[in-house]
């Protein structure tokens, strides 16, 4: 309680105007801080990151929220927001607080290359734009035309990251097996911009989003299937603000519907004990819980078991909100808790349905050297194994 802090309404309004409309709704009950996953791990960030206090500083326009290990610690998992007694849009508040510095050109050092690559290459992985569709050669994936029903929008991660490309390929194989009328525009697509918007670079997000919206409209895209829950979020929640109205589904929703309609079946028996990690952006943010479970349990021989923290209470893999690019010491990674959780359930396969989660869970599984007892798989890969022995 040393020197006196001056309330700055100008700063409060500056934060509010950059997207934090519900900042004043918060009655400071503190539930968000107490439900935040950072409480489940030790370490310097866990001690300092207090989302309630951060929003309080914003409410009064006081300084102190901009420190990197506070402002950029939030993984935007939504655990606070979904339970907030006042329905405060906490993630929007975090995003707009980040925008106050990022918008003035002050992105944290480790994130500058990400923004640079997005500006230059339309993807955060410094991959050349021309090579975006390289993973597709030899798979004769139909291009999207006027009369194609669905556009398959593949996440940049699954375009450039070799491990992640397998996800894209298995999804394509499944869609073909189910006879889905889909096509791709991959080469001309930009990153959906979900992460960079959460990092607070509103200008860059709008540039990427507008590019995609124009591309989709030019090609008469009506329905979009996404491989990543983050793209699902962006197209469903953010793009409408820029006039991009599309019917958007995650691939698990399409496949689950087709299984119900009998258009897709899994003849191969897989004797596995599978548990499912609900990606925050598929589950909590978009309330898609059952399709992945229906698909997994449609595989003969699979024994399914729920993790303790599942569905709305799922524990984030810490990949969201740009944290996938953050350096987190071992022992402080949420993903590790997911691995130990799965091992405790005696599961031999931990399945999830998001490329970011795969990176974080693979990383944690390797870190804990649990690779021998637990296999981390993306759902489409598991489904392909059960599709046919080929």
């Amino acid at each position, binding site marked *: *309680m040393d020197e*006196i*802090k*001056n*309330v*700055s*309404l100008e700063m*409060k309004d500056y934060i509010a105007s950059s997207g934090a409309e*519900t900042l*004043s*709704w*918060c*009655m*400071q009950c503190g539930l968000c801080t107490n439900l935040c996953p950072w409480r489940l791990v030790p370490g310097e960030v866990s001690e300092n990151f207090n989302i*309630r*206090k951060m929003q*309080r*500083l914003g*409410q*009064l326009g*006081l300084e102190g929220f901009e420190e990197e290990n506070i402002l950029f610690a939030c993984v935007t998992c939504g655990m606070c927001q979904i339970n907030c007694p*006042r329905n405060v849009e906490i993630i929007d508040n975090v995003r707009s607080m980040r925008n106050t510095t990022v918008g003035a050109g002050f992105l944290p050092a480790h994130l500058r290359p990400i923004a640079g690559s997005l500006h230059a290459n339309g993807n955060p992985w410094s991959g050349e734009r021309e090579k975006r569709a390289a993973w597709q050669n030899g798979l004769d994936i139909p291009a999207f035309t006027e009369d194609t029903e669905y556009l398959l929008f593949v996440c940049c991660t699954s375009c450039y990251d070799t491990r992640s490309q397998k996800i894209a390929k298995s999804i394509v194989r499944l869609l073909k097996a189910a006879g889905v009328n889909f096509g791709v525009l991959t080469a001309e697509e930009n990153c959906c911009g979900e992460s960079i918007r959460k990092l607070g670079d509103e200008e860059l997000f709008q540039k990427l989003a507008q590019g995609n919206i124009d591309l989709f409209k030019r090609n008469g895209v009506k329905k979009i299937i996404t491989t990543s829950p983050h793209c699902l979020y962006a197209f469903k929640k953010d793009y409408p603000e820029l006039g991009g109205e599309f019917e958007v589904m995650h691939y698990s929703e399409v496949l689950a519907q087709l299984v119900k309609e009998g258009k897709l079946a899994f003849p191969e028996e897989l004797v596995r004990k599978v548990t499912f990690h609900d990606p925050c952006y598929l589950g909590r943010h978009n309330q898609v819980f059952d399709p992945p479970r229906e698909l997994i349990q449609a595989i003969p021989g699979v024994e399914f078991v729920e993790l303790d923290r599942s569905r709305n209470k799922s524990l984030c893999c810490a990949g969201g909100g740009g944290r996938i690019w953050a350096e987190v010491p071992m022992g402080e990674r949420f993903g590790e808790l997911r691995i130990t959780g799965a091992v405790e359930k005696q599961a031999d396969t931990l399945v999830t349905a998001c490329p970011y989660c795969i990176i974080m869970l693979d990383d944690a599984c390797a870190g804990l050297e649990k690779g021998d007892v637990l296999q981390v798989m993306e759902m489409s890969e598991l489904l392909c194994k059960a599709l046919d022995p080929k």
Partner: protein
Amino acid sequence: MDKKTAVYICTGCGIGESLDIDALVKVAAKEGKVPVCKTHGFFCGSEGLAQIKNDLENEGVNSVVIAGCSSRVNYDVFDFGPSVLTERANIRELVTWTHPANDEDTQMMAEDNLRMSLAKIKHVEPPEPFCGENMVKTVLVVGGGLTGITAALEAAKTGYKTVLVEKNQALGGWLNGLHRLAPRKAPYTEPEEVDIANKIKELSLYPDLKVYTGAEIEEIAGAPGMFEVSIRQDSGIARERVGSVILATGAVPYDATKLDHLAYGKFDNVITAQKLEELAGQGEIVRPGDGKAVQSIAFIQCAGSRDPEHLPYCSAVCCVESLKQATYLKEQNPEAAVYIFYKDLRAPGEYERLYKKVQQDGVIFVRGDITGIDEDDEKNLIVKAQDVLTQSEISTESVDMVVLATGMVPTTAFGENPEAQGETESDDKAAASEVILKSNLLNLAYRQGPELPTLKYGFSDSNFICFPYETRRTGIYAAGSVRAPMDEASCVEDAAGAALKAIQCMELSDQGSAVHPRVWDLSFPEFAMQRCTQCKRCTVECPFGAINEDEKANPLPNPTRCRRCGVCMGACPERIISFKNYSVPMIGSMIKAIEVPDEDEEKPRILVFACENDAYPALDMAGINGLRYNSWVRIVPVRCLGSINLVWIADTLSNGIDGILLLGCKHGDDYQCHFVKGSELAEYRLSKVSETLDRLSLESDRVRMEEVSIVDYDKIPAILDSFAERLEELGPNPYKGF
């Protein structure tokens, strides 16, 4: 009346197997010489009842003693109408269910209970209700604010004549100064228009509702059903005869000049919430000093309230009032900077929705204490406070105005204290121990003081959770913010409730019946004035100020003011006060009816006076739960421990009974006694009885008092048995056998 008494001994519920019924019959027939005495295994059954009814109709029986279960059960079955005297001798819960069967002492206990009932019924006369002359059913409402107007309207709507007296020229009181009211109906987010004007108009719809404005109560004399009210209005005196009174004189804001730590009076633009209502009423809210439109404002909650130096209590409405006032500023200018500094934001129940809406309008809430208020050169104010939520001290940018949400003080908290002037005699103080400030509201012509007793913080509130209208002056009910800090919605409900209680009191008084808690008790105290020595004990100790004094200090009873508790009967050293069905000789004869074995039989006797409201039900519950205790006790139910006359103590001891136990309600701050200080007075009088005990060379330990509530029934055996042990140590009463 000449009584033909019949005794019916029920042998059901294990009584028959436990007692020698023939011996009991002998007690009734031989000793009691009652003309009719019957036994039956199931008197509350149809067959048993038929026998009783037959005796009543055909045998001319007009007083009945039923030896069996407690009077708390089968009350409807054994109710033979007002013309028949019914007495219940409890030989089940107090005897056979709590003592060993076929045991000599148990038998003696049952016989004594029967003897006591027979003795009692000899002295009981059917009470004739007191009928005052020219009883009226008009309600007087003092105070013409929201509560008073509502109470008057509610009474009138129920078809009762009503008189409303308001000190100011205009009706409306506090609401006249309000710009808007906090929301009282869904969705609870929009403040409502102040509808006091059409409520005032509504008063004129009722021909039997007379309104006096610019009028004060000169005096209220008399008693419920027959109050003589003189009303001073523009130097003339009007007279009204009313049946009951509702005190609705409300509360006033705390004197803000005392709040110098909040810079009131030091800076022009620190104003009170009341002032802001006034400003808002005049249109755009501007600063009184320089007329500048208010663009930024800071509300400071608990200005005076929750503060040991000022008002220790919370005034309950200020948080919601500030939320309401915040909407004025936001309505005037959505961009206005509005702060609310609070300790706890108390918007209970549905007001939470108003709190949420005000937050959504962008008002800034700061939880923490104010550390300082300064003024800049343009008379703007800078507020410094602790912001608990960031654990730091903060300072606002300059605001145009600071509003102090001052607390409320009841009008009954003002007026000088007669005691300070030494007006009441000193010896009264111990007994009376009640302050009655002269707040010039009711000006009762009551011996004990002109107003309702002044209670904690000045609010004239009931001391009971389940009986909020239990008043200290029969027929006079406080309602609204004079009674407790409350908002407008609660005042309206409170007014309607008080109106019903006022109506109820008039209806009951008209039939000569007491009010709560002894409703339907038609008896009332009668004074044998010839033996009165004007000692004033009764007029001082009556908890309800029911007895006035004439110039020679003779007691002047007012039956309709009386609650029939019997405290006066217990106070009177000359024993001149008695009720038709509850008198000193009645209890005296019950005590004498107890057979006291000689010393050598080693069968001590303990007399227990049990208060009907708490102790007797506890004894009953002990029986129902089959607890065991010694069989030396003989239980005499009394209306209140305060009605115990010291002569009973003397009679009991001189009769050879070894010890006396008073079982009654808890007294003190959170007292449970429905007659306010009955048990407290009993304890005070017991301290006086030690002189008589010393005179009789008896140890003062022979008389003991214990506080018991119905839920303490499991402690009854320990209380009774430990007293028995103590008496054993003291040895038998030397007067045995005299």
